[in-house]
């Protein structure tokens, strides 16, 4: 999800969705701050912007699958909250991968959960 954002959105919308990506200042119109705009829009409205584009923003529908567009929507929604940035996902992915690699059943003794003993 963060890769999708990094590839397609970051240049203009920036790491935290404030519209301060490396290309933003060169655009004829500054990209919006997600904290102002996304919070006020419904999911279908945001999806329409992603699929159809607006002004200099590309219409991504021809290039992306519906699941990728949904992922992009979730990322945009996530970044619209105060204090969030794209690095959250990078850290989150690494931590979830680390968490899932631990054999919790063995560590915590979940091999015989009570519900499985019921007749």
């Amino acid at each position: 999800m963060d890769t999708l954002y990094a590839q397609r959105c970051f240049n203009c919308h920036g790491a935290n969705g404030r519209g301060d990506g490396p290309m933003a200042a060169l655009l004829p119109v500054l990209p919006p701050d997600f904290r102002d705009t996304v919070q006020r829009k419904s999911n279908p409205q945001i999806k329409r912007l992603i699929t159809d584009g607006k002004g200099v923003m590309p219409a991504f529908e021809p290039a992306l699958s519906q699941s990728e567009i949904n992922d992009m929507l979730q990322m945009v929604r996530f970044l619209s909250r105060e204090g969030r940035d794209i690095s959250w996902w990078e850290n989150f992915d690494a931590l979830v991968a680390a968490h899932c690699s631990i054999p919790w059943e063995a560590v915590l003794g979940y091999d015989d959960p009570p519900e499985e003993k019921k007749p």
Partner: protein
Amino acid sequence: MRVRRGWHVCAVALLVNSLSFALAATPAPAPQSFTQRREVKLAIDDFILTDQSGKAFRFNQLSGKVVLVGFAYTTCPDVCPLLTAAIRQVQSRLTGTERKDVQLLTITTDPEIDVPKVLAGYAKRYGADLDNWAFLTGEEKKLRAVWKNFGVGVKRKGRGLIDHTPLTAIVDRRGFLRVAYVGPSPEVRLVLGDLRSFLADR
């Protein structure tokens, strides 16, 4: 068991969530317009591509006009929006008389995505006046010849993701490529000055 494992994932998520508030936002680097302007003299061969309405578009029909050509693709998340926006600004600053003698072209670097209908939507979003601006696509084989003639390198990285030379170029009334702007954002004032000097050259 599933519930307990879910609890662990939630705990990790909450931990990371709280950490995220402590992460400082990475400041974006200062914007730079590092577009180079090069004067050249290179003959452009005739080609036939397809415009945004699906009609055949022949380059040689523009003979006698000064042509401003930009290479871009519609789903580009990089420099193409800057490049097309610059051409749009050039168009809006041309006088009525100049528009009759100047043709603007945007040639796609991604024919897989940029079919005529997609190009028509792109033109509309930029508010392009199609009287003297055409958006061209075609078979990849034909486009490759055009890209090569203009010196544009194109490399597909993924669906709707293309690396390409960010070229905007002026072709004079005799069909020679005369000025090449290589970079994300050609300066509109400079492009207009060059166009006008070639318009004066009859």
